[in-house]
């Protein structure tokens, strides 16, 4: 669906590249993760995949369709309430999903508030909600659930998996436990000095919150830590 082949990328004015012959792929729908240490290039790769950065060599094959990239610092305009904003930016065919998403994301109480009056966690959830209401095929969630408590985060991820089984998600997070538990494939991004620069680890892809064995989860976590 998405395949990055031999990507080389360097920010203008920097000494070292971010990517040195990086290759990775996501070949099935579901909830996948991009994991790596800070500064290793997770957001850069996400933006390359979303077509928001150019100047790289190599090839990115997109056979998935429309890609959206959401990140946790995004804001909504301040002149209307978040509810009005969501209603305005949601395509007509998806309007019936607004209430379901808002309720399951625990946002019903803040729908009439202005964006600046919300907590960081609420802001991130509202931002993610508006992306989920678009017509997307592939959604990159770059720390989109930062500042959200663990229980709500889990509830949101399960809801997304339940509502969008045919869509593809690339979840960027710093939590090893979280990506191990919820994701199908975890692309572990490493320093440009290591070869290969990325490795894929199979995750537990939990959909209910009860079916993952502790032993398997620990094994996945250990594997991620070892390769990163």
């Amino acid at each position, binding site marked *: 669906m998405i395949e990055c082949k031999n990507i080389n990328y360097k920010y203008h004015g920097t000494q070292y590249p971010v990517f040195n012959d990086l290759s990775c792929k996501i070949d099935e729908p579901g909830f996948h993760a991009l994991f790596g240490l800070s500064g290793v290039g997770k957001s850069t790769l996400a933006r390359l995949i979303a077509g928001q950065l150019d100047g790289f060599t190599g090839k990115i094959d997109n056979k998935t369709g429309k890609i959206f*990239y959401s*990140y946790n610092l*995004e804001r909504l305009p*301040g*002149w209307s309430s978040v509810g009005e904003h969501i209603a305005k*930016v949601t395509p007509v065919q998806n309007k019936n999903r607004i209430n379901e998403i808002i309720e399951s994301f625990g946002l019903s109480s803040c729908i009439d508030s202005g964006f600046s009056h919300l907590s960081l966690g609420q802001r991130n959830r509202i931002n993610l909600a508006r992306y989920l209401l678009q017509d997307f095929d592939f959604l990159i969630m770059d720390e989109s659930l930062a500042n959200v408590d663990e229980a709500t985060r889990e509830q949101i991820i399960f809801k997304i998996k339940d509502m969008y089984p045919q869509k593809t998600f690339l979840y960027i997070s710093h939590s090893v436990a979280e990506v191990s538990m919820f994701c199908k494939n975890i692309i572990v991004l490493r320093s440009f000095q290591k070869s290969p620069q990325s490795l894929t680890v199979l995750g537990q892809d939990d959909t209910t919150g009860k079916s993952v064995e502790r032993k398997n989860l620990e094994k996945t976590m250990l594997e991620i830590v070892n390769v990163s």
Partner: protein
Amino acid sequence: MFHKRLYQFVFIYILGIGFLFLIKKVLNLSDYVIPSPVEIYETGRKVFLRYIPDVLNTLSVAIIGHVLSIFMATIIGIISRLSNWIGSFIKTAAFNIQAYPIVAVAPIIFILLGDGLSSRLLIAAMICYFPLLLSFIGILSEPVVDIEHFYVHSGKMRWQLEVKIRAFENMNKLVTVISGSATLAMVGTIVSEFIGASSGIGYSIRIALYQSDLAKILIALFLIGIFTSLYLAFLEWLGRIVVRKWEHNS
């Protein structure tokens, strides 16, 4: 807010007058050069009411010129956001023209348009236009990435929305720039009246200058200060209402 502005001006005016008297005392100047307080008071009684319509005349020209400049700067600022050659051309032209002292072309305007209202209006507008334009270009050309990202990548961005986002996010800056440029509009009008107009407080000051009557000039300066302060206070008040309304909505 209004009284604060007035107090501040009166305080500075009294300091200025005090400084003049200090110079007079130190240099032992005659009343002909710097009139006595009694003479200033007597002149004030004679010309105060006569000068008020002149100041109002000047202020009204300055306000119209200011509003015209804001309107023009908004339109040109919006066009300059474009990343094509028109946008680049406008930015380059604005930066170069503002580097030139516009007031120096005032005589040409008087030659072409005469000494009436249009010349004063044009000079007032030109003097406050370029600082306004540069600020508007800066504000409207600078993307608010964290807000615009969603609209751009979901294909929902329109130029009206882009302008609205950037104006909203920089409302405080816009209000400050507009208030600040009001003084420039007043400066432009008075300067144009000094140069060649046949009405307004600048013209009255020019007459007083020919008569070497510093008392009249000091009264005129007092009135200019009072009315300019009132206009600035009005703009600040208006700006606060707009900012509060927008912040309340958010």
